[in-house]
């Protein structure tokens, strides 16, 4: 049986009297019950583990109490959101989230593009492979490991970086206890972990550029620089824009898993972000309703950003994420 495109029914169905969608669905299930059966576990899992929590969001509009339960907790409307928008704590958390995210985007978004361009210029393939193998590695390590590595490197107690500073005649820096440098630590470690790996998308994009363009440019006397500026960069521009849109959708996710490993009360002031705040307020202080409201605030903004980004990408680049 050839796969049929959905709106046009297969010929044999047209012989029978017209039936509704559900009737045809019934016939299909009857005929291929095993195909539909395969879907059941997946759907059950997703309903239980993804959609039930979405229903659970309702507690953001209630005064949820673990003893009275979901159904009996009283509705309180926008109370928790009013608290959120007036709370100085949340204002700071929101500010931290945006600043850390912004710094990560400004510094860490262009970096892989530059490095991919530079990798592309390496002519010694063995060297290139070796470099790739090495710089991809940190991506596969957990934030616990990477956090541990940086705590160790930057420690004031025999950390190699501080040793270097001292030998250069500078003062030691308590990187993990200093509000003026801690965000720098977050951005550097995130860059260390993911920059190499992020080059892959761009390296793949290079291979899709028509080699004829380079041949033609060479004949016209364009050197490497000109080829880079006039062929390679324009060639990967759509991918860059697409990655940027994807990145913007994540702007309120400033790196919760990273920060949870690396921060401590001394630097909460500059590093407490929405994700970590929800974690501490919700699970630490058991302020379930309020932290659900905070989470919902983040989820709604992220969702909106992704939808806007995707429709813009579809409009201007003729390709979206879906």
């Amino acid at each position, binding site marked *: 049986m050839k796969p049929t495109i959905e709106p046009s029914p297969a010929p044999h169905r047209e012989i029978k009297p017209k039936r509704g969608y559900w009737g045809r669905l019934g016939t299909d299930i009857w005929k291929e019950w095993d*195909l539909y059966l395969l879907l059941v576990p997946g759907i059950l899992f997703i309903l*239980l583990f993804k959609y039930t929590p979405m229903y659970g969001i309702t507690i953001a509009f209630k005064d949820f109490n673990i003893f009275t339960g979901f159904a009996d907790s009283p509705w309180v409307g926008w109370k928790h959101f009013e608290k959120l928008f007036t709370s100085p704590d949340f204002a700071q958390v929101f500010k931290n989230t945006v600043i850390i995210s912004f710094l990560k985007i400004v510094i860490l978004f262009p970096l892989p593009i530059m490095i991919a361009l530079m990798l592309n210029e390496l002519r010694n393939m063995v060297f290139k492979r070796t470099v790739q193998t090495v710089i991809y590695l940190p991506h596969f390590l957990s934030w616990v490991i990477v956090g541990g590595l940086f705590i160790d490197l930057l420690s004031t107690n025999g950390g190699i970086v501080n040793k270097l500073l001292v030998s250069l005649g500078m003062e030691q820096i308590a990187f993990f206890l200093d509000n003026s440098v801690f965000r720098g630590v977050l951005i550097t470690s995130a860059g260390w972990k993911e920059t190499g790996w992020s080059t892959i998308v761009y390296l793949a994009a290079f291979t899709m550029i028509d080699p004829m363009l380079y041949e033609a440019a060479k004949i016209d006397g364009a050197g490497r620089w000109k080829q880079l500026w006039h062929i390679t960069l324009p060639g990967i521009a759509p991918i860059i824009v697409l990655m940027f849109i994807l990145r913007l959708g994540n702007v309120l996710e400033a790196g919760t898993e990273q920060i949870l490993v690396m921060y401590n009360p001394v630097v909460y002031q500059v590093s407490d972000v929405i994700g970590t705040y929800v974690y501490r307020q919700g699970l630490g202080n058991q302020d379930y309703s309020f932290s659900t409201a905070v989470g919902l605030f983040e989820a709604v903004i992220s969702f909106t950003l992704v939808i806007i980004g995707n429709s813009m990408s579809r409009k201007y680049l003729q390709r979206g994420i879906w």
Partner: protein
Amino acid sequence: MDHKKALEGTNTTRGVIQTSFSEKCFSVFNYAFFIVMGLTTLLPFMNLIAKSLSSEGAVISGQVGLLPVGVQFETYKYVLQDSMFLNSLKVSIFLTVVGTACSLFLTTLTAYPLSKYRLRGRKGLLLIFVFTMLFSGGLIPTYLLMQNLNLVNTFPVLFLPAMVNVYNMLIIKNYFEGLPDELEESAKLDGAGNIRILVSVIVPLSLPVMATIGLFFAVAFWNDYFAAMIYITDPAIKPMQLYLKELLVSSSGDFLKDNVDAAINATPQSIQASSILLATIPILLVYPFLQKYFVKGVLVGSVKG
């Protein structure tokens, strides 16, 4: 001066030479840059290895750079005999194996029908799955659900919620869609049902994508500490990443000093270093496969997704 002038030259006659000179400069810079970048990636590990092997005195006084000072192996002996560490290692291995197997099974099961264009309601079903990638109930409602299901502080909570990964499912689905229809048709003529076709025709032909997604899951389970941190307090089912995280957080305090037998010649720093390294080894062992299949997976995902 003459040399510089010659290089500047007139653009029309000297253009070619000029670019090739600057290209050479760039090339040198480029190789140097990547050597530095590679070292920046590797040196922290060297330092960690050195620390894990150095004597207490050397570590405390900060003498350890890239090579161990006053070599000792007691730290490793201590860590490898530590029942907490060993138990968390066991939990992590078990979690990775069970979690990956179950997830791969369920994800494949779900991906197959969704790869069939004749499936009625396919678009709607896909939307139901994809929507969960864009919007989620969030941490607290999910936690409360697990509490209601009595899953908090149980082993299954570490992998059950992660079993349907929509991103991975879409990659497998795309791969299935790329397989020729004739395979299915000829199996149907032989009287095979859909499940039989999936098991004995489709899956054997999809081993590369299965390997890729299997590794995606395995690395995710091995590296995850967040689920464990939220749901697990029972030390018997703490995976290694959570154990390490607690070790990191507490190593500045007195946790380790109390626990480490005062007689051994090792510092909390060395113990921390050796634990981190031991947790990294499994990743390094499978790294050649990881690199190969992950790159493939990312490419499939970025081209189709």
